[in-house]
């Protein structure tokens, strides 16, 4: 504290040095949309570096989810946990990562209240860059969560037939979908007034979306109306696609549906987010 006070007192602004740094040089060309987004992504990684505790939710939470459900349902649903894991692991990976996407909205909601966004919004850069970059940072978190679950799964006995390419392909598809899905939460992050309400809405959407799917059990035992919902739930298509890719035999319709759904999510929620962002 005392050193801070001393520094502040020691400083005497000198018109000469200030004049030098203020000299009007040639202004650099404005960065491309991609470069600006990457720079905002760098900001997100710096924040992770300064506050590493925030990685708790992308490491501890997925591990607990995986262990909990594997041992809870494994014996009852598939005869053994090892047997269940072959079916269940891709699904719990999707569930965990999709649930983590809600922190994008929570983070934006707290971040936007701070003065720094005023500065970002007065910069002459591609408008969505600040948000795209933020989600780039979150994509790193999704990757970390997916990797954590995969490692836990492999330790517990998950043996995907698709091998390394299958696993990488499956994770890649999950990341693409999660990037797209994050725009739902940026919209809510800008729309809702508090962090708590963003959390509330996220839970309301995420629980039915992830549980009413083919993540935990085969839908064939469900009542007809529920099967109808499960069949249109994008999470079902995503899980089907990832399971098939990891098992080495990609299910093309599910893959296409997932990519289409991702494009639609960005188009609709990305646009809504930018409208709100510009009006904020």
């Amino acid at each position, binding site marked *: 504290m005392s050193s801070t006070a001393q520094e502040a007192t020691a400083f005497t602004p000198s018109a000469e040095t200030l004049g030098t740094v203020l000299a009007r040089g040639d*202004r650099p060309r404005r960065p491309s949309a991609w470069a600006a987004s990457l720079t905002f992504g760098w900001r997100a990684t*710096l924040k992770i570096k*300064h506050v590493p505790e925030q990685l708790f939710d992308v490491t501890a939470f997925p591990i607990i989810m995986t262990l909990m459900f594997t041992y809870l349902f494994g014996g009852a649903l598939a005869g053994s946990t090892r047997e269940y894991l072959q079916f269940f692991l891709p699904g719990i990976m999707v569930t965990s990562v999709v649930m983590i996407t809600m922190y994008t909205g929570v983070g934006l909601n707290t971040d936007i209240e701070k003065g720094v966004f005023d500065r970002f919004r007065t910069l*002459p850069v591609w408008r969505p860059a600040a948000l795209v970059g933020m989600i780039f940072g979150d994509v790193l978190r999704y990757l970390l969560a997916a990797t954590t679950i995969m490692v836990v799964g492999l330790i517990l006995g998950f043996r995907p037939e698709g091998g390394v390419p299958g696993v990488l392909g499956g994770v890649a598809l999950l990341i693409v979908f999660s990037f797209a899905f994050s725009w739902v939460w940026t919209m809510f992050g800008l729309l809702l007034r508090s962090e708590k309400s963003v959390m509330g809405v996220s839970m309301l959407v995420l629980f039915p979306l992830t549980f009413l799917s083919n993540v935990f059990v085969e839908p064939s035992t469900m009542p007809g109306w529920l099967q109808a919902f499960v069949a249109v739930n994008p999470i079902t298509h995503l899980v089907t696609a990832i399971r098939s890719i990891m098992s080495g035999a990609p299910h093309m319709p599910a893959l296409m549906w997932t990519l289409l759904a991702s494009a639609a999510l960005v188009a609709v929620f990305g646009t809504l987010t930018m409208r709100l962002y510009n009006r904020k």
Partner: protein
Amino acid sequence: MSPTAVETSGLVKTFGDNRAVDGVDLTVPAGTVYGLLGPNGAGKTTVVRMLATLLRPDGGRATVFGHDVVREADAVRSRVSLTGQYASVDEDLTGTENLVLLARLLGHSKPSARERATQLLAAFGLTDAADRQVKKYSGGMRRRIDIAASILNTPDLLFLDEPTTGLDPRSRSQVWEIVRAVVATGTTVLLTTQYLDEADQLAHRIAVIDHGRMIAEGTPGELKSSIGAGTVHVRLRDAEQRPAASLVLAEELGTTVQLEADPVALTARADASGSDRGAAEQASRALARLADAGIIVDDFALGQPSLDEVFLALTEEAAA
């Protein structure tokens, strides 16, 4: 004819039922410091936010260097820079990281961004704090990193929203020095402030804002002479002499004299508007008259009118 940096006509912004800005017409000549003076909630910040393209006006229009703030927002953004009321830097990042981040966003290459950051940190006396998170900075240092971030690409127009609110006197005068240096390079500065002396120190012209309306506009000199230049505070040794002192002051200054709660204190406004003498001269003559009358003065001060007094004077004027 000097070019115009900012021009607004009939600018309006409403939040629900509240007309935060209610028809403001401003003209800010390029290369000058323009002060928006007013109390909290007067609408100063809202005006600045509209000009900085952060808020859309609900009525009227505003241009910055001839570009409309709504239709040509991008052109406006490439000419302006904003230092908000609350730190407009990322508090989780270090000083260097903040400046490098913004320099990169303004198009500097990595080496050039680093060089620029180092240069600015040195010029703002923050080299020792370069690798510390901004949230650990003192108030004055925070302001400086904030202003440094605003002048990365020396802007043509710099908005400073209450740049010295909450700062200690030392940090305050540092900010003033910085503002003077910025203006000397040709940048136009639009600053908001609650302090009359700050506007007086820095601004070439001042607009006084209250309840979203502009109630006065002019050079500091014009405003002061229109409201009386200052307040004379006198403390006597002997409370019994107060009635006599009050008479002398009233006669010499030509205004009503206020008797303070403290039985030896008197306050009077030195109104220079109706006189060919300055306030200081009036006050010194009043002091001499008190001495002539055998009244012992223990303490004496000529203060600038406070913002309260300015508003009182201006609103009285408006009502009359």
